[in-house]
């Protein structure tokens, strides 16, 4: 109980840092999900007709996920320096696989009869993609985006190691000062804020799901 109060005191005394950390962390999540989402969906769309291209894209995306996260944040420093950029690149690469995999699964799962009738009624290839294929694959793509969002919220805490900021700052400084006073509070604060952020983002994506998915396929 005492720890809880001291944690709250700790947080209230650093409101500005808390807000900044949250803003940076959220910044990562939003920019990464939007860019990686677009990139992965586009890749899934471009490769959808070729089994070989699909396999290739998937294996490349899975390679990124197997690289230890610590290393992935660091390897780009010689190219882009410290701060936001290397962190963004690492998170971007990490979040590709779930979205790409689900995009491919979603597009593959569309009833061939639906595509046949869409073409047969005179949809152009672009119209088939935008009005039939993507809307029908969207629930599965969105599920992939949700998985990626959780991944990014967790791993973005490493950005602090390459001076990228975010909620990882609290964890890092706590770890560095262990076992001095307030060090555990700092670690807990960073961790809890990550959890809360993950929860809020999940709620937002849930709302997006309800808003963007037709009742006919929900």
């Amino acid at each position: 109980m005492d720890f809880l109060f001291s944690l709250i005191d700790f947080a209230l005394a650093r409101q500005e840092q808390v807000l900044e950390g949250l803003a940076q962390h959220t910044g990562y999540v939003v920019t990464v999900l939007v860019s990686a989402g677009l990139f992965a969906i586009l890749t899934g769309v471009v490769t959808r007709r070729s089994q070989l291209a699909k396999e290739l894209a998937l294996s490349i995306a899975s390679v990124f996920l197997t690289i230890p996260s610590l290393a992935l944040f660091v390897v780009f420093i010689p190219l882009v320096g410290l701060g936001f950029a290397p962190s963004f690149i690492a998170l971007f690469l990490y979040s590709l696989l779930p979205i790409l995999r689900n995009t491919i699964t979603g597009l593959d799962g569309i009833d061939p009869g639906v595509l046949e009738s869409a073409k047969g009624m005179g949809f152009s290839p672009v119209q088939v993609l935008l009005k039939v294929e993507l809307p029908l694959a969207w629930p599965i793509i969105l599920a992939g985006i949700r998985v990626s969002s959780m991944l990014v919220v967790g791993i973005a805490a490493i950005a602090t190691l390459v001076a990228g900021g975010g909620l990882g700052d609290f964890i890092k400084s706590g770890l560095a000062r262990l076992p001095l006073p307030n060090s555990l509070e700092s670690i807990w604060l960073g961790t809890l804020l990550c959890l809360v952020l993950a929860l809020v983002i999940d709620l937002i994506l849930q709302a997006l799901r309800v808003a963007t998915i037709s009742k006919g396929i929900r």
Partner: protein
Amino acid sequence: MSETLIRLENVSKSYGSGAEPAVRNLTLEVKKGEVLVLVGPSGCGKSTTLRLINRLIEPTSGRIYLDGEDVTDGDPSVLRRKIGYVIQQVGLFPHRTIAENIATVPKLLGWDKAKIEARIDEMLELVSMDPETYRDRYPKELSGGQAQRIGVARALAADPDVLLMDEPFGAIDPITRDRLQNEFLRLQQELKKTIVFVTHDIDEAIKMGNRIAILREGSEIAQLDTPEAILAHPADEFVESFLGSGAILKGLTLKKVRDIELHQVPTMSSPVMREQALETLRASDDQVALFLDANDKPTRWIDERALNRTSQPIEKSGRPVTVDLQPEDTLQDALTVMLQSSVGMAVVTDRKGKYLGCCTIESLAKLIMSDG
């Protein structure tokens, strides 16, 4: 009527150089307002042929003409918007409402909103589905038969002259299929579309087609003629074997009850004098008489035994008339009813249920003989 609307000229389609072509040098004309059925064993290229018409499959060689215009080149999407397309899998868009599904082609063609809305209701009514109830539903809420009705409504929405149907009723249970076929024939009588209809079911072909093209491998036409002519004079062994046994029985689906001479059995209605009734019955060649109610609707078969059993009122004796035929039913229906009937006859009534006469096996046999 004999104007050609669709013409395939020396059309071939092959996949790869080594393989046998799916369609080999096919020339085929479809006349305006007719239902041309392409029928043949699986793998004969009938579906490929159909999809050549709206260029879902591009021909390797040959020309395709629609209403005199060469449509072999040019934007296939523009061509397809002018041609209705119905497939076995139906392929309704699951994320769109029934109304939006029907509106697909009119929207592509840029019709204005009010016209589209009116058209949706009109189409739903055309396929006997209540607009109020179904407009805002989604395809997953429909049964197979309902879904295919919407499939047909969607294909007809932009009022195309041509309708291509690829085994449209193939995945539907036999009872519903029969009903959809009948409804479709009724629709076609009104609409007079030019229809190319693919099926592997010769019975369906005979029922639906004004003309039938029986295809063998490579989409080669084995015989192209009216169902009556094909049944009467199959061109070769292949056609004969494809028609299967019982060509005469199949021919019965082409004829209507109104084509045959109806037999009149003695009738009686309330109040019945038993003595007098018995006399009438004995005087006639028939073993039974029909009891008609106040509206001339036949309700029971009455024989001598029923008349002799005085324990029951006449209205309740004898055997009930369970099914009646109408003049527009097919002779195949008539045969079925006759075979099921306890007296070997089928009662024919008009639309309101008023007694017209009876179908007998003899009259049916006479008709078949006179054709042979």
